[in-house]
């Protein structure tokens, strides 16, 4: 067996050594890993912010910090999590690494643009760091930067907002690259209905990245322009309407949550069939529902604004549309469950994390209906109910899909396997901590506790204490999960090219892959989820 050189040994462009082989790379796999280290760094920072916040909230009054720091901390937590973790994580890390391989090609269409996207990401992060430690300190406006406060306050709003702008550009250019790659570089034998679902989810996401991100770009530019020149476009004294800011902001930020979840759903669609040893149920339905979510998600932004003072007509209109968006998501959940039905289930850490995803995401989605309905929303708007809802979908959803992706593709990216037992312990502890942490928040919200409040009435203390306890469990669980993954570098247990029995093209290449991804010409199957060969291998005892 000739040992193929992996992409770690062969830099591209050729001839580069050391750190330059990474910082100047055109190789999509190296870029995916470079994103991974940066994103994991930001995730940990934001997680610690969250932990500090919840510690403060564990008891009434001041616990460990004052109110100004608290406000800046929840702003920081939101900005980092949204722009530096949840939006980029799956597309930038796993999309970059695996989209070209799944399409049977050797890189993305614009490799140097890809490198530039990474530098934009790093620069955006740097701007955020600078805004932390300079001037009047990090903004305390909330990650939503609502006017008039964001225009008038003297904290580093402009810097932070420019960081978000830069990160948006990075996201947009990645989307541009993926769409071009999808259309122009896939293997000649691979028709549209033979493309793996993860790649389809990235394609749908990419359209939202390209079309929705510019809206936040212009909105953030307007915040800076207003701060610098006081034009008055959102200032009622000068003829402006502050609600228009909210419209523009949510015109991006609602589709943004679909940028967050679609790739996560794509990951789940890959994992479930593999560990059910059964073809995905409703491949076409999942493809159409992905595109449907991308489109429908662009129509509902003002459901974040029911209490803002906008017209009753629009409140009704957006609420009606919001209910429609739930349908394509439900199609997916149904498909995943139907895939498992009468499948041959093999429990592994990726599967466990995917199952937890389905459970947590469903709760998140259902509570979204509560918020989409105007009546209940008037009661729970801007309370901890909302906070809990979006953490169920963004963390229970995308977060766990991210963990699942890590555990699924780890052997492929590094050629090594991790310890299953510790992975299970970490995952389960995280899930339990998650529930302890966020379920009390639903109740607190319904009881009336507002969000973004530094202090609260005595009746909310028990719920907050429980939530804080859950926060610590949650963090310990994640630590165990990450520690286990990093320990695999120590133990160096080698992984084969197809340890799981997957059928998509990344499992046909060595672990880790060579520079140009494929050793032999990619064998594109008629249908990407045909497990007959894998089932035969199981029968022969080879698996």
């Amino acid at each position: 067996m000739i040992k193929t050189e992996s992409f770690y040994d062969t830099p591209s462009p050729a001839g580069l050594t050391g750190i330059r082989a990474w910082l100047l790379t055109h190789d999509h796999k190296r870029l995916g890993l470079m994103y991974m280290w940066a994103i994991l760094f930001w995730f940990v920072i934001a997680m610690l912010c969250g932990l500090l916040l919840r510690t403060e909230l564990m008891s009434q009054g001041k616990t460990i910090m004052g109110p100004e720091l608290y406000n800046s901390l929840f702003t920081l937590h939101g900005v980092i999590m949204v722009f530096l973790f949840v939006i980029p994580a799956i597309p930038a890390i796993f999309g970059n690494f695996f989209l070209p391989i799944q399409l049977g090609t050797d890189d993305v269409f614009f490799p140097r643009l890809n490198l530039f996207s990474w530098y934009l990401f790093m620069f955006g992060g740097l701007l955020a760091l600078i805004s932390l430690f300079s001037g009047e300190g990090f903004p305390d406006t909330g990650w939503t930067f609502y006017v008039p406060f964001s225009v008038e306050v003297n904290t580093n709003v402009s810097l932070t907002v420019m960081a978000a702008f830069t990160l948006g550009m990075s996201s947009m250019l990645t989307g541009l690259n993926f769409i071009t790659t999808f259309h122009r570089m896939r293997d000649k034998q691979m028709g549209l209905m033979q493309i793996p679902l993860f790649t389809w989810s990235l394609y749908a996401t990419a359209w939202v990245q390209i079309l929705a991100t510019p809206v936040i770009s212009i909105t953030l530019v307007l915040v800076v322009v207003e701060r610098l020149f006081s034009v008055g476009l959102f200032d009622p004294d000068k003829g402006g309407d502050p609600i228009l800011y909210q419209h523009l902001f949510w015109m991006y930020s609602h589709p943004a949550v679909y940028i967050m979840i679609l790739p996560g759903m794509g990951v789940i669609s890959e994992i479930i069939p593999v560990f059910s040893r059964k073809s995905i149920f409703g491949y076409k339905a999942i493809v159409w529902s992905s595109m449907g979510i991308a489109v429908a998600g662009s129509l509902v932004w003002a459901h974040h604004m029911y209490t803002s003072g906008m017209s009753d007509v629009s409140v009704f209109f957006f609420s009606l549309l919001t209910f429609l968006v739930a349908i394509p998501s439900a199609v997916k959940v149904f498909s995943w469950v139907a895939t498992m039905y009468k499948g041959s289930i093999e429990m592994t850490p990726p599967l466990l994390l995917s199952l937890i995803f389905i459970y947590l995401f469903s709760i998140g989605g259902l509570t979204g209906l509560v918020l989409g309905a105007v009546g209940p929303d008037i009661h729970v708007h801007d309370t901890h109910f909302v906070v809990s809802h979006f953490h169920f979908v963004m963390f229970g959803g995308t977060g766990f899909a991210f963990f699942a992706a890590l555990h699924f593709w780890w052997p492929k990216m590094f050629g090594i396997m991790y310890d299953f037992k510790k992975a299970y312990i970490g995952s389960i502890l995280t899930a339990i901590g998650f529930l302890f942490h966020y379920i009390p928040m639903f109740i607190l919200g319904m009881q009336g506790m507002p969000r973004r409040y530094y202090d609260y009435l005595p009746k909310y203390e028990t719920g907050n204490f429980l939530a804080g306890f859950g926060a610590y469990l949650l963090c310990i669980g994640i630590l165990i999960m990450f520690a286990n993954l990093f320990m695999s570098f120590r133990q160096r247990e080698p992984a084969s090219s197809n340890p799981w029995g997957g059928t998509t093209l990344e499992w046909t290449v060595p672990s880790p892959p060579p520079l140009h991804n494929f050793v032999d010409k990619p064998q594109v199957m008629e249908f990407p989820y045909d497990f007959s060969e894998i089932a035969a291998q199981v029968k022969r005892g080879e698996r």
Partner: protein
Amino acid sequence: MIFLKLQHRSRGVNDEGSCMNNRIDKTGIKIGMWLFLYSEIILFGGLFVLYAVYFYKYPEFFSEGGKELNRVIGAANTIVLLVSSFTVAASITAIQRKAKKQAIAFLVFSILCGIIFLVNKYFEWGAKIHHDIYPNSETLVSGEPGLNIFFGLYYVITGLHGLHVIVGMTLLSISLILVMAGKVTESSYSMLENSGLYWHLVDLIWIFVFPLFYLVL
């Protein structure tokens, strides 16, 4: 500006499993450029949302503000950009026909048009500023809110547009240099084609800006 070198080799894996190269996929590069243009359209789109809403709210003041803008200079600028779009398109035809000198001439003319446009803008803005009409000026702040919004939008939209004119002129200049150096030829002119697309977008936006600000009377 490394990403601006749009020479991309269409790759893929051939029968021996090794990487194919050296076939430039012009269509792919063009698709990439159009995708970028969509983001620019939406970027300005956000500002047009504001314009639409505020025009609905302050029609009489938008009309009044429009009267204070010079229709003739606005029309002149429109014509300048339309002609420059023609010359940019013509420069591509020239390159396709291997008429290098004509391509260069058309490009130089286009860039000059851009300069004329910016000079006009400079005088327009200068005149307004001289009359105390600019963001947060005494006249606008103490005057009608509707007028403040009209001129606020005017400065923001034409300002952002002006920035794009500068970017467009930079792209055209780079294309010009590459044409002169023989790097852009009839078989490889993606850089010119896509710079042209960007320039046409700048023209497109102005085609809307002109009536919205100068002709709402």
